[in-house]
């Protein structure tokens, strides 16, 4: 089940150092006016060329790395979003466990925003080499997307790259947004402490076990187990992409969900503040775990009305750098909680990202086949099949017995209707750490269907009664 994606660039992205022109070529995606072949978002100068070049290299490095079972593969190009006042470069590692984003803020840009939207951006090997050569004295002119006139006159042949686009990669990319929306800042380090902390971490891939970073004094210390306020740091070698920018760092912030003693491993985010920009890396809970299996979106997807609300909101969004929930609720005429749920729904299909520093969503449309992003989660698909096949039976104690291939699994529910446990291997392994198992989902679907049937039935009988 592997999708494919083809990039069409009018010519390869290139950096010409003598003239100081960095031309990033684009392919596909959406702009304000709708789908475009090669959108143009920006033209102008980068105020901190060395740092911007370093940040782009880091984003590219994440895109081309597998941190688990390292192997080289044809990598997928980063995605760039023109959000009006800023440019966001995003990438997602081949192992689906590391997400990187470079936000070049308005202070980092000195030029003209031509359009808003999201597209792919070509980062090739010669460009990577040239970016490494940018020195502090060189001014750098950036163009995201080529002027059509320029394309026709400039040399360079069109580039066509075909890459595999596995659904799990796409799902993980989308899932990161949903997970990070639940993060809080946990620690803020000075540049010196950041360097000490990051440089002191073990760098070998053998250090694959999860560790925790606990705020203490001005800095963080690594610990073996979580305490309230700790940030999980699984596979510290995965933060390597931050290191080249340390000499320019203004500070480091760590984000994570709330944990307590005995919590299982969780995802974490690490944000390097740079002059005029921010570089953030999000790490999955374990090196061998990709984000696709985290299941944070499952609840959002099983809910009924989220889909319609999400469509409504999707039409209202205009590549805003910050999505203001209150304002959006007013425009959409929906209550705030439903807007938040719908934003999660949009996140699962890659239509919004989450900016931790702003604590807000931003609009972007992942420039891939939307059908691939939306393709049902395997667990959800299995659950739908089970529910449809009538594999769910209820005992008198309210336990759902879900029979798969003649093998029964018992799903327990609490008084509030939330699933508590299942006797299957998935639950045994992950408990509730990675979203519900297919049996829990099947039981919930079956329950919802029953309720719907009942309510339809009661609506029908009520209707008949009123007719009388």
């Amino acid at each position, binding site marked *: 089940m592997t999708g494919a994606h083809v990039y069409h660039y009018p010519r390869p992205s290139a950096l010409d150092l003598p003239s100081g022109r960095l031309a990033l070529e684009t392919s596909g995606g959406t702009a304000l006016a709708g789908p475009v072949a090669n959108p143009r978002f920006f033209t102008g100068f980068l105020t901190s060329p060395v740092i911007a070049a370093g940040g782009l290299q880091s984003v590219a*490095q994440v895109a081309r*790395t597998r941190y688990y079972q*390292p*192997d*080289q593969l044809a990598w997928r190009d980063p995605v760039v979003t023109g959000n009006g006042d800023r440019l966001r470069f995003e990438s997602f590692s081949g192992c689906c466990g590391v997400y990187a984003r470079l936000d070049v803020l308005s202070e980092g840009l000195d030029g003209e925003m031509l359009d808003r939207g999201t597209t792919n951006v070509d980062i090739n*090997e010669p460009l*990577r*080499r040239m970016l*490494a*050569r*940018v*020195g*502090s*004295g060189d001014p750098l002119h950036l163009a995201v997307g080529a002027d059509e006139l320029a394309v026709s006159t400039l040399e360079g042949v069109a580039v066509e790259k075909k890459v595999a686009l596995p659904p799990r990669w796409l799902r993980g990319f989308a899932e990161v947004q949903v997970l990070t929306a639940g993060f809080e800042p946990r620690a803020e380090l000075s540049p*010196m402490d950041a*360097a*000490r902390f990051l*440089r*002191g971490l*073990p760098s070998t891939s053998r*250090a694959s*076990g*999860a*560790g925790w970073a606990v705020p*203490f*004094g*001005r*800095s963080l*210390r*690594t*610990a*073996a*187990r979580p*305490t*309230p306020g700790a940030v999980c740091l699984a596979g510290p070698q995965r933060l*390597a992409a931050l*290191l*080249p*920018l*340390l*000499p320019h760092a203004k500070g480091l912030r760590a984000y994570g969900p709330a944990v*307590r*003693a*005995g919590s299982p491993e969780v995802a974490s985010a690490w944000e390097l503040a740079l002059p005029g920009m921010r570089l953030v890396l999000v790490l999955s809970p374990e090196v061998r775990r990709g984000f696709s299996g985290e299941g944070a979106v499952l609840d959002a997807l099983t809910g009924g009305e989220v889909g319609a609300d999400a469509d409504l909101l999707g039409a209202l969004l205009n590549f805003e750098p910050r999505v203001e929930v209150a304002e959006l609720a007013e425009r959409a005429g929906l209550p705030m909680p439903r807007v938040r749920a719908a934003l999660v729904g949009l996140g699962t299909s890659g239509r919004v990202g989450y900016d931790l520093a702003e604590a807000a969503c931003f609009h972007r449309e992942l420039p891939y086949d939307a059908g691939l992003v939306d393709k049902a989660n395997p667990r959800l698909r299995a659950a739908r099949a089970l529910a449809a096949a009538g594999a769910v039976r209820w005992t008198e*104690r309210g*336990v759902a017995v879900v029979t798969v291939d003649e*093998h029964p699994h*018992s*799903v*327990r529910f609490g008084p509030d209707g939330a699933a*508590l*446990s*299942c*006797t*299957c*291997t998935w*639950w*045994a*392994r992950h*408990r509730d750490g990675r979203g519900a198992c297919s049996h829990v989902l099947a039981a919930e679907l079956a329950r919802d269907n029953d309720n719907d049937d009942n309510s339809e039935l009661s609506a029908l009988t009520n209707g008949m009664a009123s007719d009388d």
Partner: protein
Amino acid sequence: MTDWAELRELIVHRGMGDVAAAMDGLSAAERKALVEPLRAHVKQLQGDFGILWNQRTTLAVAGAGVLSGAAAMTSWQTRFLFSAWDHENRRPIEPVPVVLQVLRDREVDWLPDLAQRLADRMRARSANPTVGRLIEELVALTGIAPPTTDGFVAHFADRRGDLDRFRAEPRWAALVPRMFEVDVAMNDMDYHPEHKAGSWPEFFPRLIEAGLLDREVVLDACLGGLHRAAPLGALRGALKAYRELAVTKEEIAAHTRDLIALLPAAHSTVAGTAQEELRALDESAPLSIEVLTEIGGAVLLRPEKKLVRAQLDWLAAVAKREPAQVDEIARTLSVAFGQSAADLQERAVKTVLKLAKQLSADTAAELAAAAALLPADLRGRVATAFGPVSPAEPAPAGPSPAPAPREMPPPIDSAEELVAEIGSLFTGILDDIDPVALERVLAGMVSIAYTDRDGLHEVLAPQAARHHWIPQHDMASMAIAADRFVNEYSEFVGILIAALQLPVAPPGAPYPPADDATREWEALVDKWFMPGPQRAITRRLHEIAVGINRAPRPILLATPTGSTGLIEPAELARRLRRAADEGWEPWPADLAQALLRLPRTPDPAAAAQAAELGTPAGALLAQRLTAGNAVDPPVTAGLLGSEQRTMFGREEIVTVHHVTATVNPCSPAVAGDPTAFAGALPRPQRWAFGYEQQARMLAAWPMMLPAHREVMAVHLVPQFFERTRSGRGDGGLLVALAEADGPVGPALGLALTYGLAARETADRNAAVDALLILAGRGELDGALFGPNFGLLVGRGELPLNRVAPALRELANAGAGPQLWAMLAAALPYTLPPAVDKPANRLADLLALGVELAGQTGDRKPMPELDSLADRKGSSQLVVQARRLREILAS
């Protein structure tokens, strides 16, 4: 001939030559007709395990003859084209020439496409050399440009460089720069066995000399390879290539930016090479001050001492050369104040102080501000030169209070939850078992097997049927066999099996007295020599299995009420009240374990409740609650002789002196002695037991004696000692010990010391966590732990490269004063005359001492330092000894 039957005969029983001959002169239609039968043949072979591989070569040739189109041919050859070995004639079977001949004879036009597609399919990590050779031949045959896919490039790097071949086919040179873009290729270019005669890096200069390669192209590609975040092995290949090129000053000058890009994040060897090259360049053609500060800023943040020292020296030399730039240079040097290693900080300060007189007032102020991060004595030195230094916001004075142990979750109340929890318990390896989950499951098994045996059976049976680790037979066949393997695991399975049966005795029936079966089981337990706590867990699990079957009870007494293992006295009294009311006697091991889980402090109120019960168990509880659960058997820890060794089944006592711990039963015997339940360890023992007796539920040990952690620490010392050599994942035990109650003694100190030396970083972090918990509870007695720690360091048994950073973490986390107390007690054991030769990296420990002594102010002279401090020279050991002596004297 076109007969499939004949072709099949050739494929199965004859060689490649015969198959190739059969392909000769076939028409396109004839070939097409053979495709389906050939595919059907393979499909059938797939069913016959192990037959397919020995027909691979003939299948490759047959496929080459009949399949049409590059796509189909690519899949086929990728699958079947492998070299084989002719066992009869003892020679390799090389299918490539035959396949190539068959392909060539067909005169098709898709051979270039085939070469490209085969190359597309090759994976760099598992490149099939036979397919690679076919591609090479196809390239030579068709005259196309060689494919440049990662897989083919990796294959190419694996082949020996051959000057004649390059001369004949200069096209191959195009692959050389690509080699530096593929990790596997970069890795293999240097040390593949085929390269004995000369590796690629040695071969590049010859190619350049022969005019077949452009020197600039190779150099550029090589620097690109070094700039990639590649594995170390791959970087070594590229580094070797770089060195073999003997890069000139002009070339370095042209690639300055490439070399600078390697400084901030590349591997230390790569960054070191770049630093050397740039310095050499700077010495012959001085670099601009902007570039020099950029280089300094990048390197001085790195953790490698060698690089930082070299950079400090370099900048000092530049300062001498260019006095006009001295302010800029001093500011750059101050980046190294942020280093965490004391010796680097000192060197940075020294280097800056040499420039002091030349600096402007502004720079001096900046340096004074940057010095805030330095330790006290260095801050003082900076202050004398540049004015007052306000120390950085000091780290919190003490460690954070120990976080509360996690809460005990509510009991399991349904068969479904119980079965789900059992599954969850056994997903990892048993050593990793969650002790809290285990206790909940045991309690749930006893109570649910009592109240809802049918319901339990209904949910448990299908799961048990699915799990290979539950023997699929009944209790009767669990009858004791003389060679039965007994451990915690077998007895836990026994509990599951017992719960799946109907009980053979009524509820509340007395626990069966010892009979032949019991005695035989006991004999087995004795036979499998186990550490005391392991035996205790095994016995307790066995009792539960027997009890569920022959003496059902509604509850288990020993289930803790807190996650460290303690039971609230009132709760235990309530449980015994229920037993008295319902008229059943507790199971013996259950009661013994429950009593050992009482708090150490007496509880007269609960004791009175227990005394009123009028049962023997009630009387025991009353007695224990009156006296308190605080019987502490004698523990020794330190340099002990006499290690027990089991060799080839023969036990012998040899006298070897090791730093380890023992515990003996109280003498005379006292009720409540924990060794009566958990076992004693009277003979010094450093190693845990061998594989057969390996404890499987180690994580459950600390909960067994929540009020006697020192006794449990004795049992765990051998386990932790082993963890310094191998293994991982025991760190949590130290945290559990630290969270438990009871006196803190030398055995706990020893367990923690070995924990600090564990092989895995995560385990060392756990040891630091445990020490912090003790510190947070005010129980970290450094003076108590110090001597054994010093003894181990002095004997060279602790890898200080692991221990010193862990101790620094401890100091950074606020346990500085306690740690200094420990070091002050330990250091005399590590210095002459106590040792002949100081341990490796003792300087790190001394430097840490300098820092801590400066912070805490609790100093008294340490005469043992003199012999080192009085030595001549400026080795780190001597320098740090002098610093420490100085600070202790002040």
